[in-house]
């Protein structure tokens, strides 16, 4: 067993860590049992903790993350706060007080996680009164990654809306003006495997060259599930999301270059509505707790046919920038997927960035079909980017997920739209084609018939909503 440095609730310490030890189990072993395991896959939020992150302006953000999906070694040097660190029964934090007095806890098991997610939103530096339709600017979606089985959520929502702003004496609020701890190089050789967080891209590529089977970690929200629920183990793990080359963010005349190591929340903030398709897509991608960890590179790296980013990025005609020992190359995303969870990425290569060409098509949408309105895995997802000039579709890009072994472009449907007048007749004919695209399966999420019907309905919905003010019911 080797050791890493971690500051928990203000107490620095050197703590034992294996290559697969997660932050949740570490905290519990230290007696901080307010941090609970409810699902061990980032779906329930009972293990939420605050972690100090660079806010991009020299200060610190307190991000809420699922501790069950955080590899302890991947946060070597970090500062973490748990529910116990926010307040005590004798001196409750405002989020704790509001939850307690309003009946926001029943069995209490999910409660510390709710407290942490609420505290993160309470401490959000750009929270402004009136945002998100709330007098205090509290975004209730920040709690969509926390499950409560007892209360029905109403008192929790009331507690959230009752929160004021942190006062000057609030240590975590004050902490925001100080720099966040920087990611530090970490090399751990533990009985259960090696864990590396290399200092540079060159070091990372060398490690991958030496260990072609190494598990590449970028956010870890998928790998954590494998480790926790399926007891997956890797001989060598290499964390890369902190590398400067994977954290580029460039707005050029002809394209946007988005570093693959950004968390989705960071991208959401930095894009700030610049890409309307993605602005509508972010809230439908898992939960705030997940988006605070998950990265674009990670989502494309796992290459799941039901990942949420491919349908949107395929519609945007994006390409993937890969870096390897022989330099960098760019591959159109449409050519990136080669089979079920297979891609053109070679073992020694990393996904460095995603390029989105400009200008953007004006008519875009992301339709996600799932059982639950938020924080669910899609049965079918469709991304649209259409140019309609003078009543004629001049360009159509449609990305699909959930209908084949890989994400797909709907080439036939695109062809049936391009050059045609943007009318109901065109759309109905194209929608029938779209409904026949791919080879959808029946599984526990949806039947094949429903998936096919949803493809067809999706294009009709796009058309009718483009013709009227009717809002999508799920939005």
């Amino acid at each position, binding site marked *: 067993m080797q050791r890493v440095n971690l500051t928990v609730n203000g107490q620095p310490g050197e703590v034992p860590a294996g290559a697969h030890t997660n932050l949740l189990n570490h905290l519990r072993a230290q007696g901080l*049992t307010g941090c609970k395991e409810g699902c061990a896959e980032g779906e329930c939020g009972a293990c939420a903790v605050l972690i100090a992150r660079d806010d991009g302006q020299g200060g610190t953000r307190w991000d809420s993350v699922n501790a069950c999906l955080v590899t302890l070694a991947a946060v070597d040097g970090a500062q973490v706060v748990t529910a116990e660190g926010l*307040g005590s029964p004798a001196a409750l934090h405002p989020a704790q007080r509001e939850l307690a007095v309003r009946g926001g806890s*029943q*069995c209490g*098991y999910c409660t510390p996680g709710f407290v942490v997610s609420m505290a993160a939103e309470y401490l959000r530096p750009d929270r402004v009164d009136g945002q998100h339709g709330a007098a205090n600017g509290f975004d209730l979606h920040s709690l969509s990654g926390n499950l409560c089985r007892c209360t029905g959520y109403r008192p929790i929502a009331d507690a959230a809306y009752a929160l004021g702003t942190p006062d000057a004496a609030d240590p975590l609020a004050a902490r925001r003006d100080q720099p966040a701890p920087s990611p530090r190089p970490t090399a751990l050789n533990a009985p259960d495997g090696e864990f590396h967080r290399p200092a540079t891209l060159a070091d990372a590529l060398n490690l991958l060259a030496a260990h072609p089977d190494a598990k590449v970690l970028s956010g870890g929200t998928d790998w954590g599930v494998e480790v926790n629920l399926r007891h997956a183990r890797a001989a060598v793990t290499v964390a890369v999301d902190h590398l400067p080359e994977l954290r580029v963010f460039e707005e050029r005349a002809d394209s946007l270059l988005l570093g693959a190591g950004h968390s989705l929340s960071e991208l959401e903030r930095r894009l700030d509505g610049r890409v309307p398709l993605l602005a509508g897509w972010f809230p439908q991608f898992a939960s705030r707790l997940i988006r605070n960890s998950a990265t674009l590179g990670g989502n494309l790296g796992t290459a799941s046919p039901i990942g949420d980013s491919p349908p949107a990025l395929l519609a945007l005609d994006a390409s993937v920038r890969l870096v390897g020992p022989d330099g960098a190359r760019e591959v159109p995303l449409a050519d990136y997927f080669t089979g079920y969870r297979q891609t053109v990425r070679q073992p020694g290569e990393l996904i460095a960035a995603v390029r989105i060409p400009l200008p953007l098509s004006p008519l875009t949408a992301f339709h996600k079909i799932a059982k639950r309105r938020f924080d669910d*895995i899609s049965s079918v997802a469709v991304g649209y980017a259409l140019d309609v000039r003078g009543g004629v579709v001049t360009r159509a890009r449609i990305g699909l997920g959930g209908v084949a072994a890989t994400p797909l472009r709907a080439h036939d449907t695109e062809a049936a739209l391009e050059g045609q007048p943007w009318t109901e007749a065109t759309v109905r004919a194209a929608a029938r084609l779209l409904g026949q695209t791919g080879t959808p399966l029946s599984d*526990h999420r949806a039947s094949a018939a429903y998936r096919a019907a949803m493809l067809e*309905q999706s294009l009709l919905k796009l058309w009718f909503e483009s013709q009227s003010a009717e809002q999508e*019911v799920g939005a």
Partner: protein
Amino acid sequence: MSLHERPSAASVGEAIPHESAALHVTGHALYTDDLGVRLQNLLHAWPVGSPHAHARVTGLDTGAALAVPGVVRVLTAADVPGVNDAGVKGDEPLFPTVAMYHGHPVAWVLADSEDAARLGAAAVQVGYEPLPSVITVREAIAAEAFQGAQSTLARGDVTVGFEQAAHVFTGEFDIGGQEHFYLETNAALAHVDEAGQVFIQSSTQHPTETQEITAHVLGLPSSAVTVQCLRMGGGFGGKEMQPHGYAAVAALGATLTGRPVRLRLNRTLDMTQTGKRHPFHAAWKAGFDADGRFTALEVTLTSDGGWSLDLSEPVMARALCHLDNAYFIPHVHARGRIARTNKTSQTAFRGFGGPQGMLVTEDILGRVAPLLGLDAHELRQRNFYQPGEATPYGQPVRHAERMHDLWAQLLERSDFRERQAEVASFNAAHPHRKRGLSVTPVKFGISFNFTAYNQAGALVHVYKDGSVLINHGGTEMGQGLHTKMMQVAATALGVPLSSVRLAPTRTDKVPNTSATAASSGADLNGGAVKDACDQIRANLAAVAAGTLGVHPDDVRFEAGRVFPLGHPERGLDWKTLVHDAYHLRTQLWAAGFYRTPGLHWDRVAMQGEPFKYFSYGASVTEVEVDGFTGAYRVRRADLLHDVGDSLSPLIDLGQVEGGYVQGLGWLTLEELRWDESDGPNRGRLQTQSASTYKLPSFSELPEQFNVGLLERATESGVVYGSKAVGEPPLMLAISAREALREACAAFGPPGRITPLNSPATPEAVYWALDAARTARPAEVPGD
């Protein structure tokens, strides 16, 4: 004073937060598995699960497992000194020789770490001979694979009833199950005390039964086993029977190794091993007269009991006893049978069969209303019980008028009629989105159908300094029982709530307890706590009477003061009285006991008065459905519920709201899917995690949520005039399902049946609205 009367300045009735709220929000509240990290030398247990739905175990080789570093022992049937069974029916072997479902544990590995235990479990070599399996209810019906008793509830003569009917309809209906998904999974922690006594901390709703089953597995008397439950992170019925086997495995490991043993299921294990709400199949025939009144109902209910009997028989009894819901049905013939399938052993879940029984009839009414030419709410109201009528099992419907009053109040305060018109105009204006508005009633019987369970005990101590410690037989799972019990004790003793502390539930303090279930926790334990307090107060009143120079009957206890009736200024304080009473050698502690009076039940004839009273409620829900996808949202819900005179209004409000949303999950979102194919994973639960089994999250919270408790609703014969609240509100969510049906129907021509699957997932809603959309207008309304 009688049981239901409240003194002035009572603590009961105050809206206070949960007694552990400050511990919950700070992470200081401890749950069973939080205790393990505080122990030295702890062993961790992990199961060896069957990869087949049904298979004979032909061999079990533990050699490779024992070679895994850290593995200490593998527990098998050969280790059991007592009875190798984890249930009360003798059909749940703790270590089976035939695996009965996919994931069924056939052995348990103990190791120094959870990691080692998992590796050890993977290394155990088990030989299996696969056997034919039954997975679905319909397969079980075809194979006539049933278990337990079949029961029939009958009144009148349905043949006569159908002859009198102007309209007769028939149908079939499949009702999905539900995973409890308590946030805290099953957990047990066992160690051996001095002199061979076994001490178990368990997340259990039924500590006495956990104790009894552990004792019979270990071959010990019950007196040698103590079970404690600090609190549970949710139960909902899922920890009434299921925890026993896990406690027994941990205790067996502790006795064999001498080390403390921790057993905690992770979410996957909990979902794949533990029982759920029973799926039901119903085949029905219903007759109505020309005015839409029921003339007869004939039903066959088949529940999916899973691999063992568990609580399936009483669940079926309650389902049959709730088919009527709030409606008088003159001729009834209802048959219940339990399928045996190779799945988890379905068990108690909030409502305990009541929801399924009720849903069958509400589904019938929702389906046929358009064919009877009536609005569904009008059809429902017309069939309500009138005062003086009795249920099909022969129990007079006490307070039947409450349903009428409550219904009228709810329609009024939810602006039901105005909103019906708004919904109609919205639907006329929006071809691709439709709204639905529906109202449904709930009448739910309170008491255990099993009469013997309707008893409870408590132990109340008053210490010399005047502080009060209470113990009772009920368990805390978030429902606020402990908060209510503290309020009851403070009220009965006339002391401030701050003087009362509550100690965790333990079988060595209060023995022979019933499960905390059937919504009865506060009624039963409240009666017992009050009984104990009344005894102590009588002892103290005798002392105070001497000091104050009045008759003991004229001594009043209020807010920590003791004084003669009518003279609050002439009193002494509680602490002084307690101090004096001790020195006069007065007993300052007491054991209390309560048994619900007036119950009788013939479970073979299915006749009697199994319930002390009925809880009433009604709900109005409005939904909006997207015609492209079937996606929907709940725009508004208005609930009105009868909790008697609330013991603790903030707690009760939480139960009503939480019950509704949990019911909404069952009826709209939560879908259990098993592999029904003939492939290698047949019988495997496919939705075995939070990522595949979706419970309601913030997005399902109704956008407007108005919840009220019925006022001036004193229930005589129950502690401080209150009523049970745990289960009944779950069924208020039926109005959401009916609103979805109405919205789907609005996509098509009027006057037609709109069938809707349960759960009404977006996919189910899509198929329902698509069928309506493509339907031709009904040729002849009616049958």
